[in-house]
């Protein structure tokens, strides 16, 4: 039951075309048999996918990004879940300030975060290290997890905790058996969103990597700014496919809109 009029339907189609255009173009260019960026491609060839295999830089960078995303999202989850429980369930002084602090990385311009991390890490010799990257990424992605877990925590019925307590459960058991399962969709949704954010992050990362820890977005960025060949298009196409798979999975499980608005599951 589409309630939209004809004008709205045309608008909708044009809008979707606009949103898809650059992505479709990149995917198309990646199939070109030529040595330059060409769209629509004059033929279909996997030449530039083959080229990725010959270019260890991109493969290495993809591995680093994958590891970084997984570790950073996990670290951020481990930190954000208890914090979200404290903020969502407690009434204490400083609660709002705490929440504002944990959400602040969304407010500060990323380029400012990037140079701040660079300044700090270089003073302690951590610049360019994987540890440094993990910690900085954990900070950037914590707000995403916090918002989703907070939404889940706020919907919790506290008397359920009491019911478990009256049946003899310890605080840890209550967390593990009662609270965590109830907020798990929020935690998983937050983790995936955090992972994708970390995997795609450029503006901060570009300041704090060295050649040995270059992530995929940074590698792609420097490639684009130096040369224009379809290699980076084929790499892009692969990350797009990877992201779409994750996205569809998370949409099925959680609802993409709610995930990105930061609201809990109904």
């Amino acid at each position: 039951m589409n309630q939209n009029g004809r004008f709205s339907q045309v608008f909708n189609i044009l809008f979707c075309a606009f949103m898809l255009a650059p992505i479709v173009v990149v995917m198309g260019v990646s199939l070109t048999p030529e040595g330059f960026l060409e769209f629509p491609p004059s033929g279909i060839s996997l030449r530039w996918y083959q080229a990725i295999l010959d270019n260890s830089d991109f493969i290495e960078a993809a591995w680093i990004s994958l590891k970084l995303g997984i570790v950073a999202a996990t670290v951020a989850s481990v930190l954000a879940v208890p914090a979200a429980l404290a903020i969502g369930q407690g009434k204490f002084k400083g609660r709002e300030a705490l929440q504002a602090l944990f959400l602040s990385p969304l407010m500060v311009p990323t380029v400012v975060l990037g140079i701040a991390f660079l300044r700090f890490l270089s003073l302690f010799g951590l610049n360019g290290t994987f540890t440094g990257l993990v910690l900085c990424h954990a900070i950037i992605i914590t707000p995403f997890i916090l918002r989703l877990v907070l939404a889940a925590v706020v919907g919790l019925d506290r008397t359920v905790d009491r019911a478990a307590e009256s049946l003899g459960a310890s605080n840890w058991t209550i967390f593990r058996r009662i609270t965590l399962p109830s907020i798990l969709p929020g935690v998983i949704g937050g983790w995936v969103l955090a992972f994708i954010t970390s995997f795609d992050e450029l503006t901060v990362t570009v300041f704090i990597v060295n050649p040995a820890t270059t992530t995929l977005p940074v590698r792609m960025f420097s490639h684009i700014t130096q040369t224009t060949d379809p290699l980076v298009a084929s790499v892009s196409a692969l990350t797009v496919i990877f992201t779409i798979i994750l996205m569809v999975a998370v949409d099925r499980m959680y609802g993409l809109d709610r995930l990105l608005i930061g609201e809990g599951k109904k």
Partner: protein
Amino acid sequence: MAFLEAHGLTKTYGETNAVDNLTFTVEKGSFVSLLGPSGCGKTTTLQMIAGFEDPTMGKIKLAGRDLSAIPARDRGLGIVFQSYALFMHMTVAENVAFGLEMRNVDKAERKRRVADALELVHLGHLANRYPRAMSGGQRQRVALARALVIEPELLLLDEPLSNLDAKLREEMQLELRRIQREAGVTTLMVTHDQSEALAMSDRVLVMEKGRLQQEDSPFEVYERPRTSFVSTFLGKSNNFEAELKSVTPTASQLLIAGRGLTGPSVNLKPGTVEVAVRPERIEIVDAADAVITGTVRERIFLGAQWMMNVATPLGDMLVIRRNAGRREAEIGDTVHLSWAPEHMRILPLNEVAA
């Protein structure tokens, strides 16, 4: 010997006493209700017994041992929460088994006891369902089974029927009482619903503003309220002021609206008192026998009975008459009201409620 004892129980929030020097006992195996309007302190009392709130003052003893130093998780009480507080991510059987798991009951016995508990509440066939897919009444049975399976010394029920619709509520009253009797568990129920308390309890504790107003059997609290609050909170009542002239061991002399009347004996000194008469005890009589005369202001037909509001010199009086299949007084008619002396309850004057 009393099984549960509360002695001088007090809970203070800031300046106000939510519970004020409450003392009562519950006998083993009995079903006792804490009855009162919202904010009377009944829920706070339950929370203190359960161990979720610490009393400001006073003691709670269960089977002779002091509960104050024992945390909620070790008290071993069965609690049914108003919202049921079921574990939505677990099946019915898993919900019921949870308390046994916490007690490290081995698997075989756990299975047997869960099955028994579910049988007791007639839910054996739904063991593998999730609570989300169940009706309110079924959820409540799950909550009850979960609380009973750990064989608690004391079962606490927090407004257990308030989330059910009227018809189901009546069914569950009988059902709850059957289950309680079969399990033989001492039970304390908190409720604001007087009919629920009267229907289910062995004894009723009426509370108001943190204080115990009266403790009696359901019949006694209804028939012989000792305070003005109890008389109006349980059932409907016409309360008015009167002069108590004199009291003897067998009777009392009252002056009501300028008319002398003999009433039941009472443990009060002569002076201004409050008299309570239930609307169903008031009769419409001939002018010669009238205690008081008034005009019918409103009249509502309820099927089994008529309800009338009669304006009298004592104020508006509510009169309930059984529908005997004949015509009743119309709005605007003058009616003469009377009641038997023994149906008067003579209470100390309640200035606050006047």
